[in-house]
């Protein structure tokens, strides 16, 4: 039973060389490096500073692409290309920071829940299910409206509402590792709980949570973009979502200003796809169970696993709520 559920062996495959052999993963890494470099080198790459006030004439408003402005100008005459370049910074910062919160909280909750078992497990999983059930975007909207707009609030809200999948994934992994020989032996010679969790179980959890964390970054970036688009982003910062918010509210659609509307969305899709490719390649590597089943093409199933963000990893066959089915499986 546990053999079926043993996703990870550190000894096996999570090496850089194994990763490089996965075409999808490499492509994703290249795409991501491209965007990260743009964000890091923004002041040198961007032709203009989008935070600067410009003097514009009416011909500058929503002007189509030209030699001076490769992606045209926005509703205030600012260069769109520079805004998109600088927007990468905010999106990536929020994405990574929120994902960090998700990973930390998810790991703690998942490990405590999986290791302790019993009523601790039940209570934690019920809380997790409750958070999962409440619709996320309305909840985020309501909290940010009350707490106020600002990048810190956005990171906190996204992070603390998105850790539930990660906790499930970690818990599932802990449950299977807990029954393995080396843990049993450590318990037998009297090793303390905390030490077992940190020294023995945690290393087996890290690859799983790492792969899940990559997908959480893309989810966080999309969440920030959605919040900004709906007008709850940080008013002092430019992000891809806020660019689209301005574009939409200032009539770019009716004016047909595609240069204002398409690039930020393309950038978002680019980042999301790159992170998904990387995440899927990682999940392929750490989940040998999927690779041995001869009836499935592993890449497609891994795509589905990555797609469902670890929910499938935590529940091999879809069930109403994992917490009902008892532990282990």
């Amino acid at each position, binding site marked *: 039973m546990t053999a079926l559920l043993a996703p990870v062996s550190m000894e096996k495959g999570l090496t850089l060389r194994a990763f490089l052999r996965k075409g999808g993963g490499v492509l994703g890494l290249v795409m991501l490096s491209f965007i990260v470099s743009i964000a890091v080198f923004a002041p040198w790459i961007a032709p203009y500073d989008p935070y600067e006030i410009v003097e514009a004439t009416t011909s500058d408003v929503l002007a189509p692409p030209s030699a001076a402005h490769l992606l045209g100008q926005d509703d205030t005459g600012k260069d769109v290309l520079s805004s998109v370049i600088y927007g990468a910074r905010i999106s990536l910062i929020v994405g990574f920071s929120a994902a960090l919160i998700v990973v930390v909280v998810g790991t703690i909750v998942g490990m405590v829940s999986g290791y302790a078992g019993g009523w601790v497990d039940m209570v934690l999983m*019920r809380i997790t*299910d*409750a958070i999962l*059930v*409440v*619709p*996320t*975007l*309305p*909840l985020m*909207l*309501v*909290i940010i*409206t*009350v707490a106020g707009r600002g990048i810190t609030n956005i990171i906190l809200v996204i992070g603390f509402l998105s850790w539930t999948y990660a906790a499930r994934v970690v818990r599932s992994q802990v449950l299977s590792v807990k029954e393995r020989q080396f843990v049993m032996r450590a318990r037998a010679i009297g090793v303390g709980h905390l030490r077992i969790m940190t020294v023995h179980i945690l290393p087996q959890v890290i690859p799983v949570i790492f792969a899940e964390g990559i997908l959480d970054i*893309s989810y966080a970036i*999309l969440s920030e*973009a*959605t919040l900004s*688009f*709906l*007008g*709850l982003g940080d008013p002092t910062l430019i992000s891809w979502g806020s660019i*689209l918010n301005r*574009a*939409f509210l200032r009539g770019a*659609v*009716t004016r*047909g200003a*595609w240069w204002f*509307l*398409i690039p*930020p*969305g393309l950038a*978002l*899709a680019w980042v*999301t*796809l790159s992170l*998904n490719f990387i995440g899927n390649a990682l999940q392929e590597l750490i989940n040998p169970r999927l690779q041995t089943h001869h*009836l*499935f*093409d592993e890449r*497609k*199933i891994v*795509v*589905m696993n990555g*797609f*469902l963000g670890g*929910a499938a990893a935590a529940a091999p*066959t*879809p*069930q*109403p*709520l994992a917490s*009902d089915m008892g532990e282990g499986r």
Partner: protein
Amino acid sequence: MQRLDYFIRKAAFSILTALGVLIFNFLLFRIIPGDPVSMIVSPRMRPETRERIRHQYGLDKPIWFDSGAVRETGSLLAGFDSQFFLYFRNLAQGNLGESFRQHRPVAELMGNRLGPTVVLILVGELTGIILGIILGLLAAWKRKTAIDTVATTIGLAAWALPPFWFGILLLILARGKLPMGGFITPGAIYSNPFEQLQDMASHVILPATTLAVLLFGSYMLIVRNSSLEVMAEDYILTAKAKGLSSARILRDHVLKNASLPLVTIIAMDLGIALAGTIQIETIFSWPGLGRLMFDSIAQRDYPVLQGVFLLLAVGVIGANFLADLTYVALDPRVKA
């Protein structure tokens, strides 16, 4: 007895979660920094007027328990005249407060907007489900061929597209050919019901498509995966040996068993569908609850925001509960 036990557990969970949401809702808007009535109270008003408005909204009462009133009247019941219990009493009567901006009951405002949202979600979900089933079955049946790869890639790519951007994309592409937004053409007069239907259809097609595209990816992949599992079963081999046509096998045997996990995923994705609906209604000026939420945020109309959030949250909780019941009802193998 197992079924009853399951039902009670699920019901208790749903009720507790809903209660948690109600209490959360209550607390949230009472910790706003500053005076909540400052929206409708001008600093130039006399203090008496301000106090009167606060009294009107019940904001001058103690929050949890009115011990002062108990002492005065000597009756314990009087202590329950606090904001907390007033909140629940109002809820039970369907009173969700009054909009700060429009000075009409929130429940009335929401009632007007409920219809369009339901229409949008129904059409969008149905389209997404049908699309997902067709493509999922196709991909599973033609596993490892080009069709399979293309379908799965499209499904994955669709999820990476933020719905608000995809909707804008559709608007740009359809400019001049389809209406830019709204539920029906304003001020239109129809010569027959068919024309009205046509008008409504032309308005709903873009928003529903956006929603369907958002959803079909995960539906397709789950149908594909569970179809593959089902197709490995012996009874499918038997059906093929009996000489049944592929279409017949797919429809009668594979689909029926593969659609069970789909029910779970539909319920799980309700939050995503709702998030998409809020964005879609904003972009297409669709007069629904999502747009109401967006407007109330922009106008700082807290009672409306509270009311819509409550309805959406409790609605999703209820829908999940129904989905859990449906799943158990459909699959006798599930050990509840």
